[in-house]
């Protein structure tokens, strides 16, 4: 047993570190969060792009995720516009992925002989990423604590081989294992008394401020402009880095920076959506525009080393 303040059932950071340890021992690279605003851990290039191409890839990381429309000014104990996902991506999906996942639950203190753990059908789809997969919501005593997905397509491209993706909702999981009813009451650092720092101490003010920003203050004119800029820049970078006719240059040279712009466009779209300035019909077209960017990035990624272009050339 770890020292008490690192206990995943008492400490939010202890929970994260336990998962890090577990997946690191399995052989994952433990990455840090991507340094951009994203709606979910899937947007991290370590998932979106690395899920493509033939190269094996095992990674785990925490990703702060922003869903502007979920802001509740800090008044709802279960809903946040900024929260943490724990993301694991294993490519190709190992045959014992379910057992590995269940092992991780055990590691954070969920004994499957005490808790009712279930895999309930849930097909996953991300229209902006042009991605879909089949899998489950993982239930613990009736509560959804993770998403479990076998990626079939990402960026509109068939995954070959298929990657398995596990996404843990960290706050929800922590609330359950710590037995608290409000996210703001979570013990973050596992200390007690004066030394105790709660989730609310760290994030309540941020939730209030960002809710105001998302729903009231964000400058929509500027955001609309930024969307256009990000879209144009993404396309320009893809163009600039594209392989030429010259056979010396068969790799794409500028995919990751282009993908950053795609992420940016996606987040700006979410903000505009929260501000209520996008109509139903426009909504579809925005989603389509982001999807076109992600598809173009995915296709370009296949022309890079990490995307397996050298393997394909050698074969």
């Amino acid at each position, binding site marked *: 047993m770890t020292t008490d303040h690192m206990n995943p059932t008492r400490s939010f950071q202890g929970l994260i570190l336990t998962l890090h340890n577990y997946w690191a021992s399995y052989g994952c690279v433990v990455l840090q969060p991507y340094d951009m605003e994203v709606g979910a851990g899937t947007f991290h290039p370590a998932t979106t792009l690395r899920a493509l191409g*033939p190269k094996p890839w095992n990674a785990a990381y925490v990703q702060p995720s922003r869903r502007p429309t979920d802001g509740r000014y800090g008044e709802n104990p*279960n809903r946040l516009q900024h929260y943490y996902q724990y993301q694991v991506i294993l490519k*190709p*999906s*190992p*045959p014992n992925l*379910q057992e590995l996942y269940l092992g991780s639950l055990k590691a954070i203190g969920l*004994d*499957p*002989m*005490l*808790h*009712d*753990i*279930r*895999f*309930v*059908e849930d*097909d996953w789809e991300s229209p902006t990423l042009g991605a879909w*997969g*089949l*899998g*489950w919501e993982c239930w*613990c*005593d*009736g*509560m959804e604590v993770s998403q479990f997905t*076998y990626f*079939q397509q990402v960026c509109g491209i068939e*995954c*070959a*081989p*298929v990657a*398995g993706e596990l996404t843990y909702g960290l706050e929800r999981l922590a609330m*359950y294992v710590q037995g608290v*009813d409000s996210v703001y009451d979570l013990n973050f650092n596992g200390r007690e008394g004066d030394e105790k720092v709660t989730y609310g101490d760290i994030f309540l003010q941020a939730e209030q401020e960002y809710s105001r920003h998302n*729903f009231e203050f964000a400058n929509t004119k500027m955001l609309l402009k930024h969307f256009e800029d990000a879209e144009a820049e993404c396309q320009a970078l893809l163009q600039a880095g594209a392989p030429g006719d010259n056979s010396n240059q068969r790799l794409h040279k500028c995919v990751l920076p282009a993908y950053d712009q795609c992420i940016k466009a996606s987040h700006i779209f979410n903000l505009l959506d929260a501000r*209520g*300035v996008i*109509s*139903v*019909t426009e909504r579809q077209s925005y989603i389509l525009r982001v999807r076109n960017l992600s598809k173009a990035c995915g296709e370009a990624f296949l022309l890079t080393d990490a995307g397996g272009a050298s393997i394909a050339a050698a074969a």
Partner: protein
Amino acid sequence: MPDLLLELRSEEIPARMQRKAAGDLRKLVTDALVDAGLTYEGAQEYWTPRRLTLDIRGLTAKSADLKEERKGPRTDAPEKAIEGFLRGAGLASIDQAKIVSDPKKGEFYVAIIEKPGRAAEAIIADVMPGIIRDFPWPKSMRWGRASAKPGSLRWVRPLQSIVCTFGPETEEPVVVDFEIDGIRAGNVTYGHRFHDPDAITVRRFDDYADKLMKAKVVLDPARRKEIIATDAKNLAFASGLELVEDEALLEEVSGLVEWPVVLMGSFDEAFLSIPPEVIRLTIKANQKCFVLRPQSGEGLANRFILVANIEASDGGKEIIYGNGKVVRARLSDALYFWQSDQGDLPDLDMLTASAEKFGLDLKKPLDQRMAKLDHLGVTFHAKLGTQGERVERIRRLARELAPIVGADPDLADRAAVLAKADLTTDAVGEFPELQGLMGRRYAELQGENPAVAAAIEDHYKPLGPTDTVPRDPVTIAVALADKLDLLVGFWAIDEKPTGSKDPYALRRAALGVIRLVLENGVSTNLMDILGYNSYTMHFFDFLDYIASDRYAEERFNKSNVRGQRSELLLHGELALHGRDPSFDHSASKYEHDRERLTGLDLLSFFHDRLKVYLRDQGARHDLIDAVITPEADDLLAVSQRVQALGQLLETEEGKNLLAGTKRAANILAAEEKKGTVVADAVDPALLRTNEEKQLFNAVIQTESEAGQAIQNEDYSAAMRALAALREPIDSFFEHVLVNDEDASVRANRLALLARIRSATAQVADFSRIVG
């Protein structure tokens, strides 16, 4: 005889797919075995979330030997033809073929092909990979290392292992050896994921099922359902409660567990202020739990039944605690929706235009929601405008229908205005299946007339052939208006059901109209409502308007108005009210024809549905055909005629009348074909015999009586009038020769026969009646 055991074990199969998949497996495997020449005594499928199992008993061990003679070319045929024959028949040289001679064709070759029977094992190993590869899952996936290559195995979720054993009861069964994408069939399976995860070696179905049971897997889905239902009822009973049964939920839950353990949780009594339907749906849809009611039967109890998949080491305390926590969170949301739907909306001043248009009272919550529905401009269908516009049309039509169905027009109007208001409530946003019901609840809370509240809930009915048909006149008016608007609308934009495609459930809507009309005895001419009345005129004007640039412009302008977080920010006077006053109402002839043709086409759709409906009620299809004409638009009248005609034809008189009229019609048809002259009208002066005079008088009498009866919608009387023709027709044919030598007498007699035909045709086309 040997038995076959097959198990396909995979990661969790979605509950809704299990039953069908297991059935498909049985059919595919047994069909393939039979096709290959095997027979079997019985086959039974089983399933759990993690496996599909098939138990085939009494399979033949070997397919029969087959001997086939194949005819070849003549002995003097060219070399090429003979070579082809050898290849096709699988012969090495022509010496292996027989020579047969035929007196006509000469000598030709015949090959005797002998196919020895094959062992069942070989056949099974042969057919299984194809069945697994092409299994008809609604959605399937690839996984793992193999998915790097195209064409890898697809399954609903990763397939983990295959058990396939075969052998007679008296011997040790063998493993049927086949492999698919690296998964090799064997005799090893696994028990419950947590209780007994170790490998289990099995021999045949009986020990397989026993060992699984010991490993805490109840293989038989019916047994799992029984366990859940029984334990749930007992647990409820022990607490003085009663289970609210739910077959669909039971089916789903039994597909989520291998080892069902039924537990009871509770929630705060304060949540019982939420309508029971909302509580039930919240707990069912999100948590897959059952609700309970007090044994007295009123309302719900603050308890729920959950079904776990383990016998927990603490007896289920943690599981109950966790589920209770989630149920409480869900019910808090539901309570919030229920309460906020009864409160004021923000920004009421933005809703005044919509309120005025519909005569809404913005002090009332449901009125506000209707104003919001209109104000938001939520699209009903791109070509049929917004929900607000649709409500406006339904309202107009309901008011028009009210006197026909005996409803108070003002109540019908009010009910139509509020019928869709609940679409913007939070409760319906969360649970779309509660539309109507929530509207009714909120209407009752704000003191609407009970007939209005009932109509809000029931105007969607009947939802199919077995659903109850509303009886209240106000509901009938709104229910008819709702469905007719849907049908007229989709007919106007030419999006009719084709084949199996009926995305807007228009067949159901038409059947709904039919059942509302027939089962409530509503007598009305649909074409008057559909074809030429002010409502449809407005409808076509409206479509033209929607197609116009002006509409697009208004939409655009309005959509740029910044409102609260809304989808389409469109408000104001549109379409029906905002029509251009200079619009030419005389409408061109073309427009008029377009409407009429569309109307007739829709009417024939109604006829098709009516035929199906009447046939299901036991009516003879030939009688329906005899009664329906392309213009028959009083559905009640059609149904009553069919009924009266059926009754007539069951009597001796009716049968003879039918024979007589048929005989008259046949003679007439034969003579008309020959070109014999038929007089335009019967000339009484040319009537020679008493029999023909009597017949003529009877026909005149019948014409007038039947005509009068039909006018009075008394179809039995019309049939009685027809029946009076039987006797004179019979004696006419007995004593009178139609084909008289005198051409003018003959023409006159034929005219008399034609008169019989036209007299009976008022009631039915007797030529279409069989028998």
